[in-house]
Protein backbone atom coordinates (compact mmCIF):
# COMPACT_ATOMS: atom_id res chain seq x y z
CA UNK A 1 0.00 0.00 0.00
CA UNK A 2 1.24 3.49 -0.65
CA UNK A 3 -0.34 6.53 0.88
CA UNK A 4 0.01 9.52 -1.43
CA UNK A 5 0.42 13.10 -0.31
CA UNK A 6 -3.01 13.84 -1.76
CA UNK A 7 -4.57 11.13 0.37
CA UNK A 8 -2.83 12.44 3.47
CA UNK A 9 -4.08 15.92 2.62
CA UNK A 10 -7.62 14.58 2.35
CA UNK A 11 -7.32 12.79 5.72
CA UNK A 12 -5.91 15.94 7.31
CA UNK A 13 -8.89 17.87 5.97
CA UNK A 14 -11.28 15.30 7.47
CA UNK A 15 -9.43 15.68 10.79
CA UNK A 16 -9.54 19.49 10.53
CA UNK A 17 -5.79 20.01 10.51
CA UNK A 18 -4.43 22.53 8.01
CA UNK A 19 -1.16 20.71 7.23
CA UNK A 20 1.54 22.61 5.35
CA UNK A 21 2.99 21.16 2.12
CA UNK A 22 6.28 20.51 3.94
CA UNK A 23 4.45 18.54 6.63
CA UNK A 24 2.58 16.53 4.01
CA UNK A 25 5.84 15.60 2.32
CA UNK A 26 7.38 14.58 5.63
CA UNK A 27 4.36 12.73 7.01
CA UNK A 28 3.24 10.68 4.02
CA UNK A 29 6.23 8.28 3.95
CA UNK A 30 6.18 7.94 7.76
CA UNK A 31 2.50 7.08 7.76
CA UNK A 32 3.17 4.55 5.04
CA UNK A 33 5.74 2.74 7.18
CA UNK A 34 3.39 2.72 10.16
CA UNK A 35 0.42 1.46 8.15
CA UNK A 36 2.48 -1.30 6.62
CA UNK A 37 3.62 -2.41 10.08
CA UNK A 38 0.15 -2.38 11.61
CA UNK A 39 -1.54 -4.10 8.65
CA UNK A 40 -0.32 -7.46 9.97
CA UNK A 41 -3.32 -7.54 12.31
CA UNK A 42 -5.22 -8.99 9.36
CA UNK A 43 -2.99 -12.12 9.50
CA UNK A 44 -4.77 -13.44 12.58
CA UNK A 45 -8.08 -11.53 12.59
CA UNK A 46 -10.12 -14.32 11.07
CA UNK A 47 -13.90 -14.41 10.73
CA UNK A 48 -14.38 -16.70 13.73
CA UNK A 49 -12.84 -14.19 16.19
CA UNK A 50 -15.25 -11.81 17.91
CA UNK A 51 -14.06 -8.19 18.20
CA UNK A 52 -13.43 -6.61 21.62
CA UNK A 53 -14.06 -2.89 22.03
CA UNK A 54 -13.59 -2.63 25.76
CA UNK A 55 -11.34 -4.44 28.26
CA UNK A 56 -14.05 -4.91 30.88
CA UNK A 57 -17.48 -5.76 29.47
CA UNK A 58 -20.13 -3.42 30.88
CA UNK A 59 -23.59 -2.55 29.64
CA UNK A 60 -25.99 0.22 30.58
CA UNK A 61 -24.06 1.86 33.37
CA UNK A 62 -26.28 4.51 34.90
CA UNK A 63 -25.86 6.79 37.87
CA UNK A 64 -28.70 7.98 40.05
CA UNK A 65 -30.71 10.75 38.37
CA UNK A 66 -29.93 13.47 40.88
CA UNK A 67 -29.61 17.22 40.49
CA UNK A 68 -26.06 18.54 41.02
CA UNK A 69 -24.64 22.04 40.75
CA UNK A 70 -23.22 22.94 37.34
CA UNK A 71 -19.83 24.60 37.01
CA UNK A 72 -20.14 28.38 37.50
CA UNK A 73 -20.68 29.98 34.08
CA UNK A 74 -18.09 32.70 34.67
CA UNK A 75 -15.38 30.22 35.64
CA UNK A 76 -15.99 28.18 32.50
CA UNK A 77 -16.20 31.18 30.17
CA UNK A 78 -13.04 32.64 31.71
CA UNK A 79 -11.14 29.91 29.82
CA UNK A 80 -12.98 30.40 26.51
CA UNK A 81 -11.13 31.89 23.53
CA UNK A 82 -13.97 34.38 23.19
CA UNK A 83 -17.32 35.05 24.84
CA UNK A 84 -20.39 37.12 24.33
CA UNK A 85 -22.63 37.59 27.36
CA UNK A 86 -23.05 34.16 28.93
CA UNK A 87 -22.16 32.24 25.80
CA UNK A 88 -19.15 31.06 23.78
CA UNK A 89 -18.60 33.32 20.77
CA UNK A 90 -17.54 31.37 17.67
CA UNK A 91 -16.64 32.38 14.10
CA UNK A 92 -19.38 32.26 11.45
CA UNK A 93 -20.75 28.80 10.79
CA UNK A 94 -22.67 29.54 7.57
CA UNK A 95 -21.34 30.02 4.05
CA UNK A 96 -19.13 26.92 4.15
CA UNK A 97 -17.96 25.91 0.73
CA UNK A 98 -17.93 22.19 1.48
Amino acid at each position, binding site marked *: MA*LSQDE*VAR*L*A*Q*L*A*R*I*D*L*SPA*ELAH*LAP*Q*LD*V*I*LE*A*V*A*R*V*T*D*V*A*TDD*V*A*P*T*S*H*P*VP*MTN*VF*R*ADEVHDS*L*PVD*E*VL*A*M*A*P*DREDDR*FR*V*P*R*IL*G*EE*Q
Partner: protein
Amino acid sequence: MDASTLITTSAADLAGAIATGEVSSVEVTRAHLDRIAAVDGAVHAFLSVDEEGALAQAAAVDARIAAGERPGPLAGVPLALKDVLAQKGVPTTAGSKILEGWRPPYNATVTQRLLDAGVVILGKTNMDEFAMGSSTENSAYGPTHNPWDFTRVPGGSGGGSAAALAAFEAPLAIGTDTGGSIRQPAAFTGTVGVKPTYGGISRFGQIALASSLDQPGPCGRTVLDTALLHEVIAGHDPKDQTSLDAPVPPVVAAARAGDVRGLRVGVVTELGGEGYAPEVEANFRATVDLLAELGAEVVEVSCPTFEYALAAYYLILPSEASSNLARFDAMRYGLRVGDDGTRSTEQVMALSREAGFGAEVKRRIIIGTYALSAGYRDAYYGSAQKVRTLVQQDFTAAFARADVLVSPTTPTAAFRLGERLDDPMAMYLNDLCTIPTNLAGNAAGSFPTGLTGDGLPIGFHVMAPHRADDRLYRVGAALERALTDRWGGPLLNRVPGPATTTEVTR
Protein backbone atom coordinates in the same frame (compact mmCIF):
# COMPACT_ATOMS: atom_id res chain seq x y z
CA MET B 1 15.48 16.21 60.00
CA ASP B 2 17.68 18.24 57.65
CA ALA B 3 16.67 19.05 54.08
CA SER B 4 18.68 16.23 52.48
CA THR B 5 17.03 13.72 54.83
CA LEU B 6 13.58 15.11 54.06
CA ILE B 7 13.98 14.67 50.30
CA THR B 8 15.35 11.12 50.55
CA THR B 9 12.94 9.73 53.16
CA SER B 10 10.12 7.48 51.97
CA ALA B 11 6.58 8.84 51.76
CA ALA B 12 5.43 6.35 54.41
CA ASP B 13 8.08 7.54 56.87
CA LEU B 14 7.48 11.20 56.06
CA ALA B 15 3.76 10.76 56.74
CA GLY B 16 4.62 9.10 60.06
CA ALA B 17 6.94 11.92 61.09
CA ILE B 18 4.35 14.53 60.07
CA ALA B 19 1.57 12.73 61.98
CA THR B 20 3.61 12.64 65.19
CA GLY B 21 4.68 16.27 64.81
CA GLU B 22 8.37 15.41 64.44
CA VAL B 23 8.36 17.54 61.32
CA SER B 24 5.67 19.72 59.73
CA SER B 25 4.21 19.26 56.28
CA VAL B 26 5.26 22.84 55.53
CA GLU B 27 8.90 21.97 56.29
CA VAL B 28 8.73 18.84 54.12
CA THR B 29 7.05 20.75 51.30
CA ARG B 30 9.57 23.60 51.56
CA ALA B 31 12.47 21.13 51.31
CA HIS B 32 11.04 19.66 48.11
CA LEU B 33 10.31 23.09 46.59
CA ASP B 34 13.93 24.05 47.31
CA ARG B 35 15.15 20.84 45.71
CA ILE B 36 13.03 21.56 42.61
CA ALA B 37 14.46 25.09 42.43
CA ALA B 38 17.99 23.66 42.66
CA VAL B 39 17.81 20.78 40.16
CA ASP B 40 14.82 21.17 37.87
CA GLY B 41 16.59 23.54 35.53
CA ALA B 42 18.69 20.53 34.51
CA VAL B 43 16.03 17.79 34.84
CA HIS B 44 12.92 19.65 33.60
CA ALA B 45 10.53 17.23 35.27
CA PHE B 46 7.98 19.98 35.97
CA LEU B 47 5.94 22.11 33.58
CA SER B 48 4.63 24.23 36.43
CA VAL B 49 5.31 24.44 40.16
CA ASP B 50 2.51 25.67 42.40
CA GLU B 51 4.61 26.93 45.30
CA GLU B 52 1.92 29.03 46.90
CA GLY B 53 -0.78 26.39 46.56
CA ALA B 54 1.47 23.61 47.85
CA LEU B 55 2.51 25.57 50.93
CA ALA B 56 -1.14 26.45 51.63
CA GLN B 57 -2.18 22.78 51.32
CA ALA B 58 0.70 21.81 53.63
CA ALA B 59 -0.28 24.41 56.21
CA ALA B 60 -3.87 23.16 56.10
CA VAL B 61 -2.69 19.59 56.75
CA ASP B 62 -0.53 20.78 59.65
CA ALA B 63 -3.58 22.54 61.09
CA ARG B 64 -5.74 19.42 60.72
CA ILE B 65 -3.11 17.33 62.49
CA ALA B 66 -2.67 19.94 65.23
CA ALA B 67 -6.45 19.78 65.76
CA GLY B 68 -6.16 16.05 66.43
CA GLU B 69 -7.29 14.82 63.02
CA ARG B 70 -5.56 11.90 61.27
CA PRO B 71 -6.22 12.76 57.63
CA GLY B 72 -4.72 9.57 56.19
CA PRO B 73 -1.56 7.51 55.69
CA LEU B 74 0.04 9.97 53.25
CA ALA B 75 -1.19 13.23 54.77
CA GLY B 76 1.26 16.09 54.37
CA VAL B 77 3.47 14.27 51.86
CA PRO B 78 4.28 16.12 48.61
CA LEU B 79 3.47 14.69 45.19
CA ALA B 80 4.13 15.47 41.52
CA LEU B 81 0.99 15.32 39.35
CA LYS B 82 1.17 14.43 35.66
CA ASP B 83 -0.04 17.40 33.63
CA VAL B 84 -2.76 15.30 31.97
CA LEU B 85 -4.92 15.43 35.11
CA ALA B 86 -7.08 18.47 35.77
CA GLN B 87 -6.36 20.51 38.88
CA LYS B 88 -8.70 23.39 39.53
CA GLY B 89 -7.13 26.78 38.85
CA VAL B 90 -3.71 25.30 38.08
CA PRO B 91 -2.23 25.21 34.55
CA THR B 92 -3.06 21.88 32.87
CA THR B 93 -1.60 21.47 29.39
CA ALA B 94 -1.16 17.73 28.70
CA GLY B 95 2.18 18.84 27.24
CA SER B 96 0.42 20.59 24.36
CA LYS B 97 0.50 24.14 23.03
CA ILE B 98 -3.19 23.87 22.29
CA LEU B 99 -3.90 23.97 26.05
CA GLU B 100 -1.26 26.55 26.99
CA GLY B 101 -2.65 28.75 29.74
CA TRP B 102 -5.71 26.59 30.40
CA ARG B 103 -6.70 26.43 34.06
CA PRO B 104 -9.42 23.83 34.60
CA PRO B 105 -12.57 24.92 36.44
CA TYR B 106 -12.72 21.53 38.23
CA ASN B 107 -10.56 18.78 39.75
CA ALA B 108 -10.05 15.31 38.30
CA THR B 109 -11.28 12.64 40.71
CA VAL B 110 -7.65 11.55 41.26
CA THR B 111 -6.71 15.15 42.10
CA GLN B 112 -9.68 15.53 44.46
CA ARG B 113 -8.87 12.29 46.30
CA LEU B 114 -5.25 13.36 46.75
CA LEU B 115 -6.31 16.71 48.20
CA ASP B 116 -8.92 15.09 50.45
CA ALA B 117 -6.22 12.73 51.76
CA GLY B 118 -3.98 15.69 52.60
CA VAL B 119 -1.42 14.91 49.90
CA VAL B 120 0.36 18.12 48.87
CA ILE B 121 0.50 18.73 45.11
CA LEU B 122 3.82 20.42 44.27
CA GLY B 123 3.20 20.95 40.57
CA LYS B 124 2.45 19.41 37.21
CA THR B 125 4.93 17.13 35.45
CA ASN B 126 6.19 17.07 31.89
CA MET B 127 4.90 14.50 29.42
CA ASP B 128 4.72 13.65 25.76
CA GLU B 129 1.97 15.74 24.18
CA PHE B 130 -1.39 14.16 25.07
CA ALA B 131 0.63 11.19 26.38
CA MET B 132 1.65 10.18 22.86
CA GLY B 133 5.22 9.01 23.13
CA SER B 134 7.80 6.96 24.95
CA SER B 135 10.49 9.54 25.70
CA THR B 136 8.83 12.82 26.81
CA GLU B 137 10.54 14.39 23.78
CA ASN B 138 7.12 15.01 22.24
CA SER B 139 6.31 17.58 24.92
CA ALA B 140 5.63 20.97 23.36
CA TYR B 141 7.63 22.46 26.26
CA GLY B 142 10.93 20.63 25.75
CA PRO B 143 12.15 17.22 26.94
CA THR B 144 12.79 15.92 30.44
CA HIS B 145 16.28 14.58 31.17
CA ASN B 146 16.92 11.25 32.86
CA PRO B 147 18.48 11.93 36.29
CA TRP B 148 20.75 8.89 35.82
CA ASP B 149 22.28 10.39 32.67
CA PHE B 150 21.16 13.79 31.41
CA THR B 151 21.92 12.81 27.80
CA ARG B 152 19.24 10.12 27.97
CA VAL B 153 15.44 10.14 27.98
CA PRO B 154 13.46 9.32 31.14
CA GLY B 155 10.92 7.35 29.11
CA GLY B 156 7.42 8.47 28.39
CA SER B 157 4.85 9.58 28.29
CA GLY B 158 5.19 10.09 32.05
CA GLY B 159 8.89 10.95 31.99
CA GLY B 160 8.37 14.02 34.15
CA SER B 161 6.71 12.09 36.98
CA ALA B 162 9.38 9.35 36.93
CA ALA B 163 12.28 11.83 36.73
CA ALA B 164 10.84 13.88 39.62
CA LEU B 165 11.04 10.75 41.77
CA ALA B 166 14.55 9.78 40.68
CA ALA B 167 15.83 13.34 41.14
CA PHE B 168 14.36 13.47 44.67
CA GLU B 169 12.06 16.34 43.72
CA ALA B 170 9.02 14.46 45.05
CA PRO B 171 8.59 11.17 46.94
CA LEU B 172 5.34 10.35 45.11
CA ALA B 173 3.95 10.96 41.64
CA ILE B 174 0.90 10.20 39.54
CA GLY B 175 1.14 8.81 36.03
CA THR B 176 -1.27 7.58 33.39
CA ASP B 177 -0.69 4.46 31.33
CA THR B 178 -2.22 3.84 27.90
CA GLY B 179 0.49 1.55 26.50
CA GLY B 180 3.25 1.72 29.11
CA SER B 181 3.45 5.40 30.06
CA ILE B 182 3.78 4.61 33.78
CA ARG B 183 5.82 1.40 33.55
CA GLN B 184 8.41 2.27 30.88
CA PRO B 185 9.48 5.54 32.59
CA ALA B 186 9.64 3.64 35.90
CA ALA B 187 12.01 1.14 34.26
CA PHE B 188 14.16 3.90 32.73
CA THR B 189 14.53 5.78 36.03
CA GLY B 190 14.88 2.98 38.60
CA THR B 191 11.51 3.77 40.20
CA VAL B 192 8.26 1.87 40.82
CA GLY B 193 5.21 2.35 38.63
CA VAL B 194 1.89 0.51 38.58
CA LYS B 195 -0.86 0.47 35.98
CA PRO B 196 -3.90 -0.69 37.94
CA THR B 197 -6.66 -2.86 36.51
CA TYR B 198 -8.67 -0.85 33.98
CA GLY B 199 -11.43 0.93 35.88
CA GLY B 200 -9.63 0.61 39.21
CA ILE B 201 -8.87 4.33 39.25
CA SER B 202 -11.23 6.96 37.92
CA ARG B 203 -10.45 8.61 34.59
CA PHE B 204 -12.74 11.57 35.32
CA GLY B 205 -10.70 14.70 34.68
CA GLN B 206 -7.93 12.87 32.86
CA ILE B 207 -7.50 14.41 29.41
CA ALA B 208 -8.41 11.40 27.29
CA LEU B 209 -6.00 9.76 24.83
CA ALA B 210 -7.57 6.35 24.14
CA SER B 211 -10.48 5.81 26.48
CA SER B 212 -10.52 2.00 26.37
CA LEU B 213 -6.80 1.84 27.23
CA ASP B 214 -6.12 4.83 29.53
CA GLN B 215 -5.60 4.23 33.22
CA PRO B 216 -4.11 6.54 35.90
CA GLY B 217 -1.84 4.97 38.47
CA PRO B 218 0.65 5.47 41.29
CA CYS B 219 4.42 6.02 41.00
CA GLY B 220 6.91 5.92 43.88
CA ARG B 221 10.45 5.19 44.95
CA THR B 222 9.44 2.26 47.15
CA VAL B 223 6.86 -0.49 46.73
CA LEU B 224 5.04 0.41 49.95
CA ASP B 225 4.83 4.11 49.04
CA THR B 226 3.35 3.15 45.68
CA ALA B 227 0.80 0.87 47.32
CA LEU B 228 -0.22 3.56 49.83
CA LEU B 229 -0.75 5.99 46.96
CA HIS B 230 -2.68 3.35 45.00
CA GLU B 231 -5.08 2.97 47.92
CA VAL B 232 -5.59 6.74 48.24
CA ILE B 233 -6.64 7.22 44.60
CA ALA B 234 -8.46 3.93 43.92
CA GLY B 235 -12.12 3.03 44.17
CA HIS B 236 -15.44 3.45 42.43
CA ASP B 237 -16.37 6.83 40.97
CA PRO B 238 -19.90 7.43 39.62
CA LYS B 239 -18.45 10.19 37.40
CA ASP B 240 -16.55 7.58 35.35
CA GLN B 241 -18.88 5.19 33.59
CA THR B 242 -16.10 2.59 33.26
CA SER B 243 -15.05 2.78 36.91
CA LEU B 244 -15.18 -0.63 38.63
CA ASP B 245 -17.81 -0.87 41.35
CA ALA B 246 -15.71 -3.31 43.35
CA PRO B 247 -13.51 -3.31 46.47
CA VAL B 248 -9.94 -2.02 46.04
CA PRO B 249 -7.53 -4.99 46.04
CA PRO B 250 -5.50 -5.24 49.30
CA VAL B 251 -2.41 -3.60 47.81
CA VAL B 252 -0.95 -2.15 51.01
CA ALA B 253 -1.20 -5.44 52.90
CA ALA B 254 0.48 -7.16 49.94
CA ALA B 255 3.30 -4.61 49.88
CA ARG B 256 3.86 -5.09 53.62
CA ALA B 257 3.83 -8.89 53.31
CA GLY B 258 6.07 -9.20 50.22
CA ASP B 259 5.73 -12.96 50.35
CA VAL B 260 6.05 -14.93 47.11
CA ARG B 261 6.23 -18.41 48.61
CA GLY B 262 4.05 -20.72 46.56
CA LEU B 263 3.25 -18.02 44.01
CA ARG B 264 3.25 -19.36 40.44
CA VAL B 265 5.34 -17.01 38.28
CA GLY B 266 4.89 -17.40 34.51
CA VAL B 267 7.72 -16.36 32.19
CA VAL B 268 6.20 -15.27 28.86
CA THR B 269 8.23 -16.98 26.12
CA GLU B 270 7.38 -14.40 23.47
CA LEU B 271 8.57 -11.38 25.49
CA GLY B 272 12.30 -11.84 24.98
CA GLY B 273 14.88 -12.86 22.40
CA GLU B 274 15.58 -10.86 19.28
CA GLY B 275 15.62 -7.09 19.84
CA TYR B 276 16.16 -7.40 23.60
CA ALA B 277 19.46 -6.12 24.97
CA PRO B 278 21.60 -8.97 26.41
CA GLU B 279 22.05 -7.07 29.69
CA VAL B 280 18.29 -6.66 30.03
CA GLU B 281 17.72 -10.36 29.39
CA ALA B 282 20.47 -11.39 31.82
CA ASN B 283 18.99 -9.18 34.53
CA PHE B 284 15.55 -10.62 33.82
CA ARG B 285 16.79 -14.22 34.13
CA ALA B 286 18.63 -13.43 37.36
CA THR B 287 15.48 -11.83 38.78
CA VAL B 288 13.37 -14.87 37.90
CA ASP B 289 15.99 -17.07 39.62
CA LEU B 290 15.79 -14.80 42.65
CA LEU B 291 12.00 -15.23 42.80
CA ALA B 292 12.52 -19.01 42.70
CA GLU B 293 15.01 -18.70 45.59
CA LEU B 294 12.40 -16.73 47.52
CA GLY B 295 9.95 -19.60 47.16
CA ALA B 296 8.04 -18.85 43.96
CA GLU B 297 7.27 -21.59 41.50
CA VAL B 298 8.50 -20.63 38.02
CA VAL B 299 6.70 -21.89 34.91
CA GLU B 300 7.06 -21.04 31.24
CA VAL B 301 3.92 -19.81 29.44
CA SER B 302 3.27 -18.99 25.81
CA CYS B 303 1.20 -16.05 24.54
CA PRO B 304 1.55 -16.42 20.77
CA THR B 305 -0.70 -13.51 19.78
CA PHE B 306 1.26 -10.95 21.84
CA GLU B 307 3.40 -10.38 18.77
CA TYR B 308 0.38 -8.79 17.10
CA ALA B 309 -0.44 -6.60 20.11
CA LEU B 310 1.77 -3.70 19.04
CA ALA B 311 0.12 -3.55 15.59
CA ALA B 312 -3.37 -3.70 17.10
CA TYR B 313 -2.47 -1.03 19.63
CA TYR B 314 -1.21 1.38 16.97
CA LEU B 315 -4.57 1.10 15.24
CA ILE B 316 -6.86 1.20 18.29
CA LEU B 317 -5.02 4.05 19.99
CA PRO B 318 -4.96 6.42 16.99
CA SER B 319 -8.59 5.58 16.20
CA GLU B 320 -9.77 6.46 19.69
CA ALA B 321 -7.39 9.43 19.89
CA SER B 322 -8.58 10.92 16.61
CA SER B 323 -12.07 10.91 18.06
CA ASN B 324 -11.11 12.11 21.58
CA LEU B 325 -8.94 14.94 20.28
CA ALA B 326 -11.80 16.27 18.17
CA ARG B 327 -12.77 18.19 21.32
CA PHE B 328 -9.86 20.54 20.71
CA ASP B 329 -11.88 22.60 18.28
CA ALA B 330 -10.85 26.13 19.35
CA MET B 331 -14.42 26.94 20.36
CA ARG B 332 -14.79 26.42 24.13
CA TYR B 333 -11.24 26.41 25.50
CA GLY B 334 -7.66 26.28 24.32
CA LEU B 335 -5.89 27.92 21.43
CA ARG B 336 -7.84 29.79 18.73
CA VAL B 337 -5.97 30.95 15.63
CA GLY B 338 -7.12 33.05 12.68
CA ASP B 339 -10.45 34.31 14.02
CA ASP B 340 -10.23 37.61 12.13
CA GLY B 341 -13.88 37.94 11.14
CA THR B 342 -13.37 36.61 7.61
CA ARG B 343 -12.79 32.94 8.32
CA SER B 344 -15.40 30.30 9.06
CA THR B 345 -15.53 28.10 12.13
CA GLU B 346 -14.10 25.17 10.17
CA GLN B 347 -11.20 27.23 8.85
CA VAL B 348 -10.40 28.56 12.33
CA MET B 349 -10.60 25.02 13.67
CA ALA B 350 -8.15 23.68 11.08
CA LEU B 351 -5.71 26.57 11.58
CA SER B 352 -5.87 26.23 15.36
CA ARG B 353 -5.27 22.48 15.29
CA GLU B 354 -2.40 22.92 12.83
CA ALA B 355 -0.78 25.48 15.12
CA GLY B 356 -1.60 23.76 18.41
CA PHE B 357 -0.73 20.09 17.77
CA GLY B 358 2.79 18.68 17.46
CA ALA B 359 4.07 16.23 14.84
CA GLU B 360 3.32 12.99 16.70
CA VAL B 361 -0.22 14.08 17.55
CA LYS B 362 -0.86 14.89 13.90
CA ARG B 363 0.62 11.53 12.83
CA ARG B 364 -1.68 9.62 15.14
CA ILE B 365 -4.81 11.64 14.39
CA ILE B 366 -4.31 11.02 10.68
CA ILE B 367 -3.61 7.29 11.16
CA GLY B 368 -6.77 7.06 13.27
CA THR B 369 -8.81 8.98 10.74
CA TYR B 370 -7.58 6.59 8.05
CA ALA B 371 -8.23 3.45 10.14
CA LEU B 372 -11.80 4.56 10.80
CA SER B 373 -12.59 5.84 7.32
CA ALA B 374 -15.10 4.19 5.01
CA GLY B 375 -13.68 1.18 3.21
CA TYR B 376 -10.79 0.65 5.64
CA ARG B 377 -12.57 0.36 8.97
CA ASP B 378 -13.12 -3.41 8.90
CA ALA B 379 -9.61 -4.21 7.71
CA TYR B 380 -7.85 -1.96 10.21
CA TYR B 381 -9.89 -1.05 13.26
CA GLY B 382 -12.08 -4.17 13.05
CA SER B 383 -9.08 -6.50 12.77
CA ALA B 384 -7.32 -4.75 15.62
CA GLN B 385 -10.36 -5.33 17.83
CA LYS B 386 -10.18 -9.03 16.99
CA VAL B 387 -6.51 -9.13 17.97
CA ARG B 388 -7.60 -7.62 21.26
CA THR B 389 -9.84 -10.66 21.82
CA LEU B 390 -6.95 -13.00 20.99
CA VAL B 391 -4.61 -11.21 23.40
CA GLN B 392 -7.22 -11.52 26.15
CA GLN B 393 -7.57 -15.23 25.41
CA ASP B 394 -3.79 -15.65 25.67
CA PHE B 395 -3.83 -13.92 29.05
CA THR B 396 -6.71 -16.10 30.28
CA ALA B 397 -4.88 -19.28 29.28
CA ALA B 398 -1.62 -18.09 30.83
CA PHE B 399 -3.28 -17.05 34.10
CA ALA B 400 -4.77 -20.54 34.37
CA ARG B 401 -1.21 -21.78 34.81
CA ALA B 402 0.40 -18.86 36.64
CA ASP B 403 -0.65 -16.32 39.30
CA VAL B 404 1.47 -13.57 37.72
CA LEU B 405 3.29 -13.24 34.40
CA VAL B 406 6.71 -11.62 34.08
CA SER B 407 8.91 -10.08 31.38
CA PRO B 408 11.44 -7.29 31.05
CA THR B 409 9.57 -3.95 31.19
CA THR B 410 11.42 -2.68 28.12
CA PRO B 411 13.66 -4.35 25.52
CA THR B 412 16.49 -1.88 26.29
CA ALA B 413 17.53 0.60 28.97
CA ALA B 414 17.06 4.36 28.44
CA PHE B 415 18.14 5.57 25.01
CA ARG B 416 19.70 8.89 24.10
CA LEU B 417 17.71 12.06 23.51
CA GLY B 418 17.03 12.52 19.82
CA GLU B 419 17.96 8.95 18.93
CA ARG B 420 14.47 7.75 17.93
CA LEU B 421 12.62 11.03 17.59
CA ASP B 422 12.02 10.90 13.85
CA ASP B 423 11.65 7.13 13.56
CA PRO B 424 8.13 6.40 14.86
CA MET B 425 8.36 2.61 14.53
CA ALA B 426 11.62 2.41 16.52
CA MET B 427 9.98 4.54 19.21
CA TYR B 428 6.85 2.36 19.24
CA LEU B 429 8.93 -0.81 19.85
CA ASN B 430 9.63 0.47 23.39
CA ASP B 431 6.19 -0.61 24.43
CA LEU B 432 6.35 -4.20 23.17
CA CYS B 433 6.06 -5.75 26.63
CA THR B 434 3.69 -3.27 28.21
CA ILE B 435 1.01 -2.96 25.51
CA PRO B 436 -0.69 -6.39 25.82
CA THR B 437 -1.84 -5.47 29.33
CA ASN B 438 -3.55 -2.28 28.15
CA LEU B 439 -5.37 -4.19 25.41
CA ALA B 440 -6.64 -6.73 27.94
CA GLY B 441 -7.21 -4.27 30.80
CA ASN B 442 -5.48 -6.26 33.54
CA ALA B 443 -2.95 -4.90 36.08
CA ALA B 444 0.83 -4.60 35.66
CA GLY B 445 3.79 -2.87 37.26
CA SER B 446 7.50 -2.22 36.81
CA PHE B 447 10.04 -2.66 39.61
CA PRO B 448 13.75 -1.74 39.53
CA THR B 449 15.99 -4.79 39.49
CA GLY B 450 19.44 -3.57 38.49
CA LEU B 451 21.72 -1.42 36.38
CA THR B 452 23.41 -1.92 33.03
CA GLY B 453 27.19 -1.64 32.70
CA ASP B 454 26.58 2.02 31.75
CA GLY B 455 24.81 2.58 35.05
CA LEU B 456 21.28 2.75 33.64
CA PRO B 457 18.32 1.21 35.48
CA ILE B 458 16.57 -1.96 34.32
CA GLY B 459 12.93 -2.71 35.11
CA PHE B 460 11.17 -6.00 35.84
CA HIS B 461 7.60 -6.24 34.55
CA VAL B 462 4.93 -8.10 36.50
CA MET B 463 1.42 -8.68 35.14
CA ALA B 464 -1.57 -9.84 37.21
CA PRO B 465 -5.17 -10.76 36.33
CA HIS B 466 -8.02 -8.24 36.48
CA ARG B 467 -8.59 -6.99 40.04
CA ALA B 468 -5.56 -8.90 41.39
CA ASP B 469 -3.38 -5.78 41.57
CA ASP B 470 -2.21 -6.87 45.04
CA ARG B 471 -0.11 -9.65 43.47
CA LEU B 472 2.07 -7.04 41.76
CA TYR B 473 2.96 -5.59 45.14
CA ARG B 474 3.67 -9.02 46.64
CA VAL B 475 6.25 -9.66 43.94
CA GLY B 476 7.59 -6.10 43.92
CA ALA B 477 8.04 -5.99 47.69
CA ALA B 478 9.74 -9.40 47.81
CA LEU B 479 12.21 -8.30 45.13
CA GLU B 480 12.79 -4.91 46.76
CA ARG B 481 13.62 -6.52 50.09
CA ALA B 482 15.99 -9.11 48.68
CA LEU B 483 17.71 -6.74 46.25
CA THR B 484 18.09 -3.86 48.72
CA ASP B 485 19.94 -6.33 50.97
CA ARG B 486 22.22 -7.40 48.14
CA TRP B 487 22.86 -3.86 46.97
CA GLY B 488 23.43 -2.59 50.51
CA GLY B 489 20.71 0.07 50.05
CA PRO B 490 18.15 1.28 47.53
CA LEU B 491 19.18 1.47 43.87
CA LEU B 492 18.32 5.18 43.81
CA ASN B 493 21.16 5.88 46.26
CA ARG B 494 23.39 5.46 43.23
CA VAL B 495 21.85 8.23 41.11
CA PRO B 496 24.79 10.41 40.04
CA GLY B 497 24.85 13.84 41.67
CA PRO B 498 24.09 12.38 45.10
CA ALA B 499 20.77 13.08 46.66
CA THR B 500 22.44 14.80 49.59
CA THR B 501 23.73 17.66 47.47
CA THR B 502 21.36 20.40 46.48
CA GLU B 503 23.27 21.49 43.38
CA VAL B 504 23.28 19.55 40.15
CA THR B 505 25.29 20.69 37.20
CA ARG B 506 24.82 19.48 33.68
